[in-house]
């Protein structure tokens, strides 16, 4: 008997699916073609390439053919764009200029890739001495002012466009080197590369199969940028009159036009236009590829299960929670008889607007309350909406989140009144830190690495309580002692990277209680910690909660933690509240099948090596 029944429930990851539930996969190229800017860029560049390629056919005159009886002429049927001061045809010179300009840009990029890419691959993959030496060379190359070096090169080798471009390719190769090296470094230790090593793949195979694919797209983007720079540099050299005078280039044409700027300023226009068009095409192409890649990333990056991640786009909240315009109308009073609840959430719905105008709900019709001195556990698996619920109480939802239904009241007045679309920052900024505070999941990433722990404890107290810095410092040291830190003075002066994870979590707890809040929202406060540290932190939370008589909302996936701390439990699944009640009732006698399934998945007390999920309990096939 295999258990294929259960797992054919191939529930696609939310976000990877379209509205219909079918998986839409589009490659970068497809996305590129869907982007109008990408198409414009490709059309421009392709057009330029064709003009350059067929310059010999398309140009009515030789690039240096001068009709001295017809200088600085206006456009006519013979000279489409007029002639320059020597009577040479501007259109023909523009075409031949395109040829030389594009070729030199290609040469430059080819040289730069030829040096930077292999060097970057080797340095990134093997590190060691090669990397040290190349880093040193790179730091030299990067501190050389390009144009000055090219002038010197010209002094040595004469006015050759090709030598100049090869030299510039060498000078700019560090950009490829650094790009490739950091890309390789980021995947070198990825587990899938380890898996390939375990399978005995050769280094060459690993690099070509697993690593090269990572750098390919960035290299193309970089090449678009570098080709643009190469065109600019090449034209600049030509403009200075340092090129081969027998060749028509855009730079020479600019210089020629600049000399005659008082007579025929249009001579300047055409080469400048051609240059801007070409470089612009390259820039647009680079941007379009980057956008296409990032669209792919959005889906890929859903793997970080960090709470607060926007489940729709996979992005974290980006900008500040937009302040709602202060509404003139007064906030309605809460329903009589509910004022005594510390916090009360009623029929809350939170959603994210989708591209097609619909709203994807991540929290749907959730109601619960917490009283003073009470601990409510919100339990659920990833994607259950438990963190979104917690953040809407804090008013720290991502910018694009909408409260689509329901209300939230805190201490007898609404923070989200019925009918309001967003959490009122005006009302919540008065409460946050002072009455409501927050303990995050990941201790390290929640402290600003650039400031000492002391600073990060003192500042909120100064701002929120309006006490002096000295007073705040005294309180901070006492708080650090209270959360069980043995040497508070040292921790106070330390930077976050100088303390352990368990210590950092204690610091964050100290911060959460520093202004004596009435409600603490703890989002998986022990998940990132080792079990023995978790036990200590749970003890600490319990002790503080009892001493200060605060209300706590504890978001967690761990029933053990719930049993340890909570008075009541709410179980959530797919944005909905499944079941809510006193902790003993829910844990011992769950009514809902989902809660039963979750509790049945607990290993504690199970017969070792027994099958955990009976076929009957398996999820229906999606």
């Amino acid at each position, binding site marked *: 008997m295999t258990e294929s029944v259960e797992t054919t429930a191939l529930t696609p990851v939310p976000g990877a699916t379209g509205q219909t539930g079918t998986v839409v996969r589009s490659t970068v190229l497809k996305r590129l073609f869907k982007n109008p800017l990408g198409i414009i860029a490709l059309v421009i560049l392709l057009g330029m390439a064709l003009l350059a390629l067929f310059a010999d056919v398309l140009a009515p005159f030789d690039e240096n053919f001068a009709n001295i009886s017809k200088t600085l002429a206006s456009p006519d049927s013979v000279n489409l764009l007029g002639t320059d001061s020597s009577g040479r045809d501007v259109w023909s010179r523009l075409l031949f200029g395109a040829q030389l300009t594009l070729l030199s840009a290609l040469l430059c990029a080819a040289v730069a890739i030829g040096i930077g890419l292999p060097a970057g691959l080797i340095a990134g993959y093997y590190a060691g001495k090669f990397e040290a030496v190349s880093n040193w060379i790179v730091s030299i190359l990067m501190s050389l002012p390009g144009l000055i070096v090219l002038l010197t090169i010209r002094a040595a080798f004469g006015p050759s466009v090709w030598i100049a471009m090869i030299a510039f390719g060498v000078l700019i190769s560090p950009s490829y080197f650094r790009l490739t090296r950091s890309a390789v470094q980021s995947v070198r230790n990825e587990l899938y590369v380890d898996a390939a090593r*375990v399978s005995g793949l050769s280094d060459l195979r690993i690099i070509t199969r697993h690593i090269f694919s990572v750098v390919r797209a960035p290299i193309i983007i970089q090449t678009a940028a570098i080709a643009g720079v190469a065109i600019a540099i090449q034209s600049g050299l030509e403009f200075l009159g340092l090129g081969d005078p027998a060749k028509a280039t855009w730079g020479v044409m600019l210089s020629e036009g600049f000399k005659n700027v008082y007579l025929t300023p249009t001579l300047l226009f055409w080469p400048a236009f051609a240059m801007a068009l070409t470089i612009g095409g390259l820039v647009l192409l680079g941007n379009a590829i980057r956008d296409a890649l990032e669209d792919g990333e959005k889906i890929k990056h859903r793997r970080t299960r960090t709470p607060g991640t926007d489940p729709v786009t996979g992005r974290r909240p980006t900008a500040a929670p937009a302040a709602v315009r202060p509404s003139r109308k007064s906030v309605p009073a809460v329903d009589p008889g509910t004022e005594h609840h510390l916090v009360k959430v009623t029929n809350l719905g939170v959603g994210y607007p989708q591209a097609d105008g619909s709203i994807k709900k991540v929290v749907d019709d959730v109601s619960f309350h917490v009283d003073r001195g009470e601990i409510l556990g919100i339990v659920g698996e990833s994607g259950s909406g438990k963190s979104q619920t917690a953040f809407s109480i804090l008013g720290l939802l991502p910018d694009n989140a909408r409260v689509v239904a329901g209300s939230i009241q805190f201490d007898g007045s609404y923070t989200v009144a019925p009918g309001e679309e967003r959490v009122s920052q005006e009302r919540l900024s008065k409460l946050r830190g002072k009455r409501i505070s927050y303990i995050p999941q990941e201790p390290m990433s929640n402290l600003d690495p650039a400031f000492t722990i002391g600073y990060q404890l003192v500042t909120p107290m100064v701002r929120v309580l309006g006490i002096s810095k000295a007073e705040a410092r005294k309180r901070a040291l006492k708080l650090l002692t209270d959360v069980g830190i043995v040497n508070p003075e040292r921790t106070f002066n330390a930077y976050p990277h100088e303390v352990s994870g368990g210590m950092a979590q204690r610091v964050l707890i100290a911060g959460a209680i520093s202004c004596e809040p009435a409600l603490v929202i703890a989002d998986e406060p022990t998940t990132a910690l080792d079990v*023995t540290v978790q036990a200590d932190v749970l003890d600490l939370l319990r002790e503080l909660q009892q001493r200060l008589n605060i209300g706590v909302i504890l978001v967690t996936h761990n029933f*053990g933690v719930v*049993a340890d701390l909570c008075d009541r439990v709410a179980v959530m699944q797919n944005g909905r509240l499944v079941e809510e009640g006193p902790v003993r009732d829910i844990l011992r006698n769950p009514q809902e099948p989902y809660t039963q399934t979750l509790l049945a998945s607990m290993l504690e007390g199970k017969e070792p090596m027994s099958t955990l999920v009976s076929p009957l309990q398996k999820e229906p096939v999606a």
Partner: protein
Amino acid sequence: MSTTKSAPLLTVDQLVVEYPSKKFRAKPFRALTDINITIGRGETLGLVGESGSGKTTLGRAILGLAPVTGGKISFDGKDISHATRKDRRVLSRDLQVVFQDPYTSLNPALEIGDILAEPLGVQGMEAAAAKKRVKELLDQVGLPSDAINRLPREFSGGQRQRVAIARALALSPKLIVCDEPVSALDLSTQARVLDLFLQIQKDTGVSYLFVSHDLDVVRHISHRVAVMYHGEIVEQGPADIVTRDPEHPYTQRLLLASPVPDPDRQEQRRADRHRLLESQRMQHEQAGVLA
């Protein structure tokens, strides 16, 4: 299912792993000290410890992903302590891995079919035969065969972990090193994946080195358990003894630190833990006085 009297499949003998320090002339960092373990055929050895205890490093050393500076690792009678990449290619038929993070252990750019065919291709299997094998594997881990042409990102964490297990199974190995394979999964998914691991062992007789920080997980899946602390194995023995009645003070602390899903029993456990910590502290102080 228990260990046979014949020679064990894997023997790790006085293993030492040291990483050279980044700083010039500084002492190398010692990740593992004097590790001795054996794993029999069809047996699961659970390896439990906290972050930084060295449990992952031990798995990586066996796989050739961590530098062996001392001691010996023997697999199926051969010394593999310093196996070359070529040796590894041969070895990969019998020794495979499932990593913790199902999100980074699969190359996001490759389709599931290609990921699963990779170990087969290394062994020189024809494309057609490989494709057939891939279908078998998907079936074995309970994924639909249309998964072949999909990308990893189209799957949930539990499903990806099934793909990773299928990849490990591709060459019908004798031992799979499982590095925290269920830690990143939701509770109900974890239960299903554990069921799959057990089912596969029943069907194929594969051995596991099962690394986890979770004593409950290790107790559930292992025949024997080894406890790691600060780069050393402090205790090992039959699973039910080590995970229910441990001897080493650290394992005792670990056992009582993990909370149970019942308020009253948890209160009891909490009290037990405080008593244990108190008595260990007193012992420690007495030892300090004596020393």
